[in-house]
């Protein structure tokens, strides 16, 4: 009888686990269909076809969705799938042979991780720049008016993890500020003492501020634009700020190199750049 009870419950747990695993597997990116390009040698441009998986930094979410819609309009045979996450997470996934065709990183460090291992086809292209800002909840209960206030006792600060591009930039900014006589070395310790969470990506930081769970965070100015009704920004002095550089490249293991290269070309085209500008990004050069 008792053994029976356990027998009924354990399989349920196992089954639920199985369903989760299977659902995750199905959610993965399908390998792009092979494209028959028999006419590849003819001068006439063969229509692009198939599916490409674009692994892109979280901060690119809105801009890249717009770009993909335009790109698909121009190339009706191509379907663009996205995997938005922290560039560090994406780099690890690609390193572990995730089926990616294009990688767009929010910093050069995570792109270099892959180019060092020859996992990117050719040299990556810089396609946009961005600027970190401090975000605070609209009601600013903690009374944060300048970067200096991040070191006030009791302030709850959230940053992305140190390997996530924006988390790395944020720590560089804190270091730079601490190096100025106005802030002083104590600034770094006091600010990092206020750190309550290392979030997975820039959007997780933004959400914590939107919800008012934390008093301040550091995200890109483009992220702050995404939720401008819920958060306010505090500028970081230019001298202490870091310019985020976004490189993009074709992943070496791609099975649809033509479409992947075409997508990158589209991102750097006037139309792609306009979409990035509309989302608040700065041009690459």
């Amino acid at each position, binding site marked *: *009888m*008792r*053994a029976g*009870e*356990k027998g009924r*419950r354990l399989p349920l*747990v196992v089954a*639920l686990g199985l369903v989760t695993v299977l659902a995750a597997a199905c959610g993965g990116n399908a390998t792009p269909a092979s494209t028959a390009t028999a006419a590849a040698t003819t001068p006439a441009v063969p229509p692009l076809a198939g599916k490409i998986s674009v692994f892109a930094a979280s901060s690119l979410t809105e801009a890249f969705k717009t770009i993909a819609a335009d790109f698909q309009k121009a190339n009706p045979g191509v379907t663009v799938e996205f995997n938005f996450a*922290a560039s*560090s*997470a994406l780099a*690890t996934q690609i*390193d*572990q042979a995730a089926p990616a065709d294009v990688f767009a990183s929010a910093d050069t460090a995570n792109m270099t991780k892959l180019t060092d291992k020859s996992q990117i086809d050719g040299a990556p292209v810089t396609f946009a720049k961005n600027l970190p800002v401090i975000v605070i909840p609209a009601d600013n209960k903690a009374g944060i008016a300048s970067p200096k206030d991040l070191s006030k006792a009791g302030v*709850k600060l*959230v940053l992305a*993890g*140190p*390997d*996530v591009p924006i988390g790395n930039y944020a720590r560089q900014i804190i270091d730079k500020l601490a190096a100025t006589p106005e802030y002083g070395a104590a600034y770094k310790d006091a600010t990092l003492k206020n*750190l*309550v*969470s*290392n*979030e*997975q990506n820039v959007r997780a930081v933004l959400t*914590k501020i939107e*919800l*008012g*769970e*934390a008093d301040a965070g550091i995200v890109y100015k483009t992220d702050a634009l995404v939720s401008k009704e819920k958060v306010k920004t505090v500028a970081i002095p230019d001298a202490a700020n870091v310019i985020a550089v976004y490189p993009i490249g074709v992943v070496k293991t791609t099975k649809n190199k033509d479409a992947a290269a075409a997508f990158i070309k589209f991102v750097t085209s006037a139309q792609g750049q306009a979409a990035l500008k509309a989302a608040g990004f700065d041009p690459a050069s």
Partner: protein
Amino acid sequence: MVDRRGAGNPRTWSLTALFVSPTLLFAAFVLVPLVALAVRGWRDGEVAGQLTSPFVLQALRLSVVTSTLSLVLALLLGVPAAYLLARVRFPGHRLMTILVELPMVLPPTVAGVALLVAFGRRGVIGSVLSDMGLELAFTTTAVVLAQLFVAAPFLVRSLQAGFEAIDPTYEDVSRTLGVSEWRTFWRVTLPLARPALLSGAVLCWTRALSELGATLIFAGNFEGRTQTMPLAIITAFESRAGLSGAIALSLVLLAVALVLLVLARFAHFRPRGDL
């Protein structure tokens, strides 16, 4: 285990034969990834070093402390709840049963968002607490609450079924012999429900130990404070430590889970003495 009663029956055997392949496939499906994890850990030179790194040890300690606290709280709230659900037909009984099962089928991320909306700074209860100077988000307390929310139902469900399986005659006899209700509960009912209590406690503890989604959303991710083992695995996976760190942490959790399940099996079957 083969049912010996049907050993000579050809029909039972044909069914058994039919079921062998899916069973083996299932076993392989579970076993292969776990073995791959162990093999990779064995071969990867960095994994052994990671096992004793402060990053891993801190996460392990936090996981053990928080999941144990969650279990204690689950026992304090869950034992009475399971007993009432099993023994008393009260108004709202059915509602309560559904309520207990809800967190078991709910994605933990939903639990995380719900906890945030309730106990976060701007939450229904959280805002009141915040005015009193008590803030839960990003604290170890938040980790325990997240674990309790998703794990306690496993204890209650198991124990409720355990209590229901006990013949009330035992309790009646105890009481007619003049033993108080309170004493009867401790001396008769609870010992009889021991196997269910143990298996429920193990399920609850391991569920708390593996809690990720709710913790990440409600408690955040900070070393030594809210970064439990599962969060450390994600953090390692996405950092420079990469896969080696994630594998080291995964192996530790796998070992803990395995030991617990084996112990629970023994504890579970001993009183019956037939297995």
